[in-house]
């Protein structure tokens, strides 16, 4: 009974949220976002190139509303979960690549950092389900 209740409640929540926000464009099920470089656990000296990989979807400019395409966002040391109802934040730990870039040169302070990619739609909202890469951590010396 309890489980049914929970299910119903969560279904209701999902429904109401998707009703209230028309954002969250559907993405192909087999879409995959990943880092070409660096790999998880890589030790790096100085600045380094980060290259973004995307399969089964296309990269386009922010603002261009094409099916199955979006633009990259690179999250550095972000631990907050992604909010599908809000545009991906813009600050020094959420880098936007709205011009359709697929790589960037990063210079991070020494220490361990995590990197994660999130694909955003024309208006910077995450897709539904969110297209995110696995988090990689790098150690800067």
């Amino acid at each position, binding site marked *: 009974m309890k489980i049914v209740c929970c299910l119903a409640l969560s279904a209701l929540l999902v429904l109401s949220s998707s009703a209230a926000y028309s954002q969250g464009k559907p993405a192909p099920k087999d879409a995959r976002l990943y880092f070409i470089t660096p790999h998880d656990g890589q030790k790096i000296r100085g600045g380094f190139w980060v290259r973004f990989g995307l399969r089964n979807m296309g990269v386009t*400019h*922010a*603002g261009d509303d094409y099916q199955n395409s979006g633009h990259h966002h690179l999250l550095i040391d972000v631990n907050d979960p992604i909010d599908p109802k809000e*545009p991906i*934040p*813009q*600050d*020094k730990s959420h880098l*936007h*690549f*709205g*011009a359709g870039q697929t790589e960037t040169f990063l*210079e991070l*302070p020494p220490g361990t950092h995590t990197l994660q990619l999130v694909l955003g739609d024309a*208006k*910077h909202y995450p897709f539904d389900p969110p297209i995110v890469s696995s988090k990689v951590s790098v150690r800067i010396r």
Partner: protein
Amino acid sequence: MGEIRNFKSGNQGERPPHGAVPRRLAAIIVGDIASYSRLMQADEEGTHVRVKRIERDLIQPSIVEHHGSLVKTTGDGFIAIFDSPVEAVRCSIVIQQNLVGRNASLPKDSRIEYRIGVNLGDVIVESDDIYGDGVNIATRIEGIAEPGQVFISGAIYEQIKHKVVCGYESLGDRKVKNITDPVRVYRVLPDADAVSRTRGRRENILIFFLSLALLVIAGYVLWYMLAQPGSQVGQHAAAPPAVAPTASPTPAEPGSTAPAPQVAPAASPSPTAVPSPAALPSLVPLPSTASIREPEMVAIRAGSLAMGSIDDPTERPVHQVAIKPFAIGKYPVTVREWNECAAAKACGFTAIGKDDAPVTNVSWTDAQQYAVWLAQATKKPYRLPSEAEWEYAARGGTQTKYWWGDKLQPGMAACKDCGDVSADQPVKVGSFKPNPFGLYDMGGGVDQWVADCWHKNYQGAPADGSAWIGADCTSHVLRSGSWKNDARYVRPANRDSYDTNVRYPTHGLRIALGP
């Protein structure tokens, strides 16, 4: 007061045990309470207790904290010496700023306000007093300082100008009593009040001359029309108000909707061309100029700032930048102002949202289009501010982390953790306190585009306040932080970048005016 100025008549009989006269170069602070006699007359014991408390709780600890030493206190003042001019000026600023806080709740006539003068000089130091020209000059400078202010000599200024981040106003060479050579004096403008007072006075002078000029023009127009045939006499009713808005730096109130005063500028240059005042609104020769709601502007006087901070790698190195006079929008550009550009088909999209909310979802290219349109439509040199101008305006003469101080305070800015709830939309412009220059939302609210290309730090940045524009400009600089960012982004030194052609929901703009 008399006691302080009487250095040479002090206890000269005592000499330190070692024989030679001990001389040293020192930065000398002389402080003295304004209207001490009046305060004593009103409440002798109370004043005495309060002065002693200020000396014990504020002045002595501040001096020690800045590695200085208190030479002596007198009835209404103190003298301290420092090895470092920078520390001496910092200490003076700390004392003055703390006194502002202490005085805030008191009625005007019972406030204890110090004048402070700082000079660099070679002085004779004895155990309980110091002597020399340097001390006398410091005393004279203190004497011409206004209550609550720090005046410094040219010698101090030369030492600190690139090191202590605050404004300096040159007061020129002053002849001081019993000193042969004139002394160059500077006013230090560290705190909000000092800056706005200066500005206020200058503005008053400016307004006076402006109105004088207007009067002359109006008189001329009147004479001109009276000299014309009778049929056109009726116009002078329209002419004088017609001149006023063109000369005023702040033509449009954001709240007002009546376009009447703005209709007039088009008519004023050629009063005889318009047949009758009744037909004026419909027969405006330049309809685009007439109907434009120009953003309200605030004139910013020339000055300099130490731009940047050590809080973030992008904000280094801190470097001195000179700023020429310019004007900047009192608020970010609003939806209403933006949509006039959109209606003229000069801006890329029509903004939705409340009329007096800041326009958002603006790319740098969009912002630039708005500036170009506004300049063309009004025939005034509207443009985006340079990054240096933005920071100068945002600091409002302060050197602190935020324009209101070093600590976060609720009610000062719209940001994620500034103490107010974040909404989907930024609140309407001007909802928070203005900074010392009278500018609203310089920090928090909406991100604001400036003219500069993005450079990852200030290595090689221009020092003349101009925009730093490079060849390959794929991203531009954003200032202010938005209602969705945390408090670090509200700092006036904070800078961020974004792709030139991409819109984002927290990005807006503020307009500037100047060559």
